[in-house]
Each structure stands twice: as C-alpha cells, then as structure tokens.
C-alpha cells in the first residue's frame, strides 16, 4: 500500500466539498477508495451491501454523523445516527435488526449533552425496533473534534422475493417521493451559527423501516429505494440514473415542498432539490404497481404527502431532466460542491 502512487486528483487537500454528497464526494470514493477494495459487493455503491450467509440474505451498512449543532429543531445527532443506519438498511429492502455505535467525544463536552444524546438514541432504536448491541468510545483533545461525532453500523435481513438495487430502474418505471423535500437541511440551516433565522421548520428525521415494510407488502416488485440525504433528491436520482443507465424525467410542479421550506430556500438562495432530507425516500416502481405503492405510502404517517414526481425514460440515459414550473425543460445535475449562497 505504501508504494502505491496517489491517484491524480484536482485537489491536494481534502476540502469540505468532498463531503457534500455531490460530484467531489463521488470522485473521492471512486478514485481513492473503490480501487483499493474492489469487490462485487462494494462496487454498486448502494446504501449498504447485500450478501448471503447460510442461506439468509443480510444487508450491512455504516454511516457517520458530524452534524453541527448537535441539537437542532426536531432532533439531535444521536437520533439522526440511529435513523441514518436504519434507513440505509431499509433502502436495501432489509429489516434492520442490530446496530453498533462508535462515539468520538471532544474533551470538555458536557456530560449532560452526552447523556441526552445517548438517551435519545435509546428512544430512537426502540421506535425503530432495532437493538444497539456493540459500541466503542474514544475521547480526543479539545479542538480535535466538534463536541461529538457518531458512527453507526447495522445489520438487517432482506426478506425473500425482495430485490432492490439502484441498477434495477427500468424504462417506464414511476418515481415516487414519500413527502415534502428539503426539511432537514433547512431545519439545520435555521440554527447554524451566524445564520439563525426565525422559523418553525423542524427536521424530518425518522426511521423509514416501517414505511418500507408497508410499501413492500403492497408492492414487492419495487425496483429501487433511496433516501435522499446529503446532496438531496437530485444527487440520489442522478446516481440511480447513472447506475441503471436510464434517464429520469421529473415534473417540478409535482414535487412536494412546504411553503415554509420554499420560503427559507428562496431567502437563502438555495435550491431545495439539493438540500438534505432525513425522513424521506424515493421509490422507483414498475408502472403497474405505482398506484398500489403510492396508496400504501399515503396510508402511513411518514408517507401521507407522497407523490409520483417523475418517470424513468429511455431518452438521455444517465441524466435527469425536469419539466420546470413554467413549462421549460432543463437538466438536473449533481452539484460539484457545497451549495453556496448566491450574492444577488
């Protein structure tokens, strides 16, 4: 390993945009990480890996959480860490069973805060029906971390007959979104230092496993599930289009978004299609099952605003287009870095 030359990259250092879920994140993984570990489970770069052990199909996933501030309207870093891995497993079609938790704590962090976060994780795990079964704790010098970082990993079981993977999107499939977009990202923005603005927006963080169970019970032939977290709806759909080598066409007018979130995005100059969600999912479903799946979602409290927002098409493979509100058409591409507020 020591003798391997570092692959050519446009950057000599890691910049924040490498963690934004957009193109630079993708490049970092594709250029630096994947070539070292190349294997058929890793290469689809799904939310988790699916494999068989003694006949049982298991899903395995991991996620790290560094959100700032650690407490925000609608949740905290602990709740997010449980939901994040529960949801990644759910997006594999798996029933989440066991979680691990790794804590990196900054010296000086208040014991009260840590307690609140751990109890919040217990509640979240209980709600999602998963058990936290192993963990680790490290403390670093003051200033070497920002209060608390959490990694969670998880294992789940994939039921027979369920086959969910980004590569399975097929021409003619419908794209269903489970609810209003950009809520989590804007809730975090509203309390970020230096940017505080008055709003009632609370994070949508939620465990999606029960919603997925309802969908799969009604429409077991779902092709793809994805939770559009970092990078938002756009990044998730672009990745699906690229992996399945299909085009996706969206209808902007059909994308659910609350007035408050829309207003906050307008003021801050952000495009909600790129803003993070934590309790929403995208389902790519064969046309004949779309209305069944949609009904199943709408019955569930986490999917009551679900809508068909687009379809998979043969035109323009590997990219996503959108009919805009005024009737024009444009391509919706992944962001290269962080979404930066515009000046005017």
């Amino acid at each position, binding site marked *: 390993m020591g003798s391997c030359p570092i692959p050519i990259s446009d950057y000599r250092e890691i910049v924040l945009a490498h963690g934004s879920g957009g193109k630079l994140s993708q490049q970092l993984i594709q250029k630096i990480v994947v070539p070292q570990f190349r294997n058929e489970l890793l290469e689809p770069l799904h939310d988790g890996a699916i494999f068989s052990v003694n006949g049982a199909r298991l899903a395995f996933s991991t996620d790290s959480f560094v959100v700032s501030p650690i407490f925000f309207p609608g949740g905290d870093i602990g709740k997010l860490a449980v939901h994040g891995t529960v949801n990644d497993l759910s997006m594999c079609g798996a029933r989440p069973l066991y979680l691990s938790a790794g804590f990196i704590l900054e010296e000086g962090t208040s014991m009260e805060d840590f307690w609140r976060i751990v109890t919040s994780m217990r509640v979240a795990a209980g709600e999602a029906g998963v058990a936290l079964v192993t963990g680790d704790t490290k403390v670093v010098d003051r200033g070497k971390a920002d209060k608390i970082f959490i990694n969670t990993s998880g294992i789940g079981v994939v039921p027979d007959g369920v086959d969910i993977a980004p590569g399975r999107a097929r021409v003619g499939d419908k794209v269903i979104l489970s609810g209003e977009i950009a809520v989590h990202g804007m809730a975090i923005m509203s309390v970020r230092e230096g940017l505080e603005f008055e709003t009632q927006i609370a994070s949508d963080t939620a465990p999606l496993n029960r919603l997925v169970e309802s969908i799969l019970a009604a429409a077991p032939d779902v092709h793809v599930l994805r939770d559009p977290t970092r990078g938002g709806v756009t990044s998730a759909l672009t990745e699906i289009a690229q992996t399945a080598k299909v085009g996706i066409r969206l209808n902007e007018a059909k994308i659910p978004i609350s007035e408050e979130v829309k207003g906050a995005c307008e003021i801050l100059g952000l495009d909600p299609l790129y803003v993070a969600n934590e309790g929403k999912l995208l389902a790519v479903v064969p046309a004949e099952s779309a209305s069944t799946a949609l009904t199943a979602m709408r019955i569930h409290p986490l999917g009551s605003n679900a809508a068909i927002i687009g379809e998979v098409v043969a035109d323009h493979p590997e990219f996503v287009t959108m009919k805009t509100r005024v009737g*024009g058409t444009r*391509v*919706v591409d992944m962001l290269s870095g962080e979404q930066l507020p515009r000046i*005017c």
Partner: protein
Amino acid sequence: MKYLDEYRNEELAQKVVGEIRRIVTKPWVVMEVCGGQTHTIVKYGIDHMIPPEVELVHGPGCPVCVTSLEMIDKAHAIARRPDVVFTSFGDMLRVPGSDGDLLVLKSRGADIRVVYSPIDALKIARANPDKKVVFFAIGFETTAPGNAMAVFQARKQGIKNFSVLVSHVLVPPAIASILQSPFNRVQGFLGPGHVCTVMGYREYEPIAERFHVPIVITGFEPLDILQGVLMTIQQLEQGKWDVENQYPRVVKREGNLMAQDLVDQVFEIGDRKWRGVGSIPKSGYKLRYEFRDHDAERIFEVEEIDTKEPEICISGLVLRGVKKPHDCPAFGTLCNPEHPLGATMVSAEGACAAYYAYGRHLQQPNQRSEAKHKTVEEPV
C-alpha cells in the same frame, strides 16, 4: 407561495411566449445584463421556450465573475494571514485565483467564513477584537448600500478591527463599453432590476438615446424575464429605443434615495478593472479617504501581484455577449465547476456555470437552442 407562484405560472408564461411569437418578424439579439437573470433563464429553460428569432445573450452582470484576478489574489494574500478572519459572500469562495481558491486556503487553515450580509462580518469583528476581520466587498450597485452601511457603522461604533476589500463595479459603464465594441451584436437589453431598485433608471436614458437601444428594466422571476423580452421585442419591431420598467413592483425611476445617499457618503467613483474585459473608466466604487482606516487595501499593503489567466478561457468574450459558453473548447471538458478555468464557471450566476449546472454540457449539439444561431468570428 404568494408573490412568487404568480410569476412562475405556466399558463401565463405560455401566453407571453405566444405574444412574442406573434409580433416577432426577424432575428433579434437581446442581452440580459444580470447573472441572476441568466440563472433564471437557464434554470427554467426559458431560452428553449421563446421563438428561435430571439437570441438571448448573457451579460457581464455577475459580480463574482468580473472581479479581477489581481483583486482575488489580493484577497487570498490577506486571507492567508494568521491574524485575519476573512469573510465573504458564499459564491466568492470557489473563484479560482492564480493559486487555488478560498476553499482550498480554508482547508489549509485560513479562517474564512461565509456571511449573508456585511453586517454579520461586523458582528464577527465585534466578537473577535484580537483579530482583523476583513469583508470582501464585491458586487454591483445592489450590494453597495449594505457594504457602505457596514463601513459607516464600523466607524460610528469605533470597530477598528473591521475593514473591507472593495471591488465594486457599476452597470451603466459596462453596458456602454459593450455597445462601443466593434464586435457588439446586442440590439436590446433586459436591464438590471435589483441594481435599479437602488439606483433608479435615469442613468440608462442617455445610453438608450445615444446608442439607439431599447433597455427594459426587468425582474428575476420567469414571467418577469418573458415580459421583459416581450417589451424589448415590441420596441425593436417598432423601431423604438426607450427605457421601460417591467419591474415597477420594486423599481422606481429615481430609485432608493436614502440608499444612494449612504453609498455616496462612503464610496466615490473610480476606474475599475473587470476580469475578462479589462479596465473600464469610472466603472467602480472605492472607499472615500475619510474611511481609509477601514480600507483593507491600505491596511494590509498587499504588493502588486503577478497574475496568470489560463490562455484557453474565453470568459471575457462570454461576459460581453460575444460568445456563448459552449463556444469554448474547454467548456464541460477541461473546464467545469470542480475545476474552473475562469470565473464564469464558478458563480452560480456565471453564464458558464449556469449552463453547466443545468446540464447544457450533456446535451447533443443539435439539442442546443443556441446552435441555431451563427457564432460570430472571434475578435482579435
């Protein structure tokens, strides 16, 4: 959302498009001055909706794009200093200087912070008295009152550790410069709605008169743009060259007099170098002598910097409406937002970045509406 949805209504948009189609009899070239307008046009696919006779070319109104490389390099030299907190509008962070951008400097340890308002930078200065807090005061007349207010307040409140690196630019001299160019193709303008909110539009009247071009002060929502195009084409077809106001819900002929007064107290007009365009006389603001204690250029005495621009980049021609982003051989290949060669690829308001973000590099040439227009020969 109230006051927004009305301006994004598909039915009304189609009506205006139909009206443009009905009255247009020959090809016209119309420039939208503002980067924000370019952004709306590409984001909503407006250039694909209007009849092919009307060609929209993109103007120099992206302040991030036109900030000179020397100024960016000066900003970097200041931001690198350990005693400095460097504050800036967000989209300035990714603009490449001669050696990297502010995001890279940040990853190397420089204290660089995004603010939404220069007043926030002033707050940072108050909270960090042991640091020198610098705000990168860029923009057109739109941001000038806010920036002027920050300097004004800093002096009033005695906040000595606050300074601004001023690189303000003005729209009317830029429009005049475009019209004087022998390569000019622009026959009508969508004027800068937000600039005129501050400044009014009296100063555009002599330009329209002198160059015989209609100027329609236009807003930023899709229906604003479509109506602005309609009003411009109406004038062109009738052989008129008036200054008209499409954006009366915000813009008044005399503008915002209080804001103008504040700007006048803090800034004076001076020559300014525009990236990709060159020096334009009397085209920018600089701080008045009375405010020299808050002038970052004086405080930090950054020496003249030798700048390097990539030779292949045609952003200067794009900014003047002579070329379109995809006329550039590097567009979408060597030059993209992850690796921008010129500033028009960096800011969301830059024509190249807007084209890229909305996927124009992915389209086949025959899908590009612009391909129907003949490209002019490159000027020497």
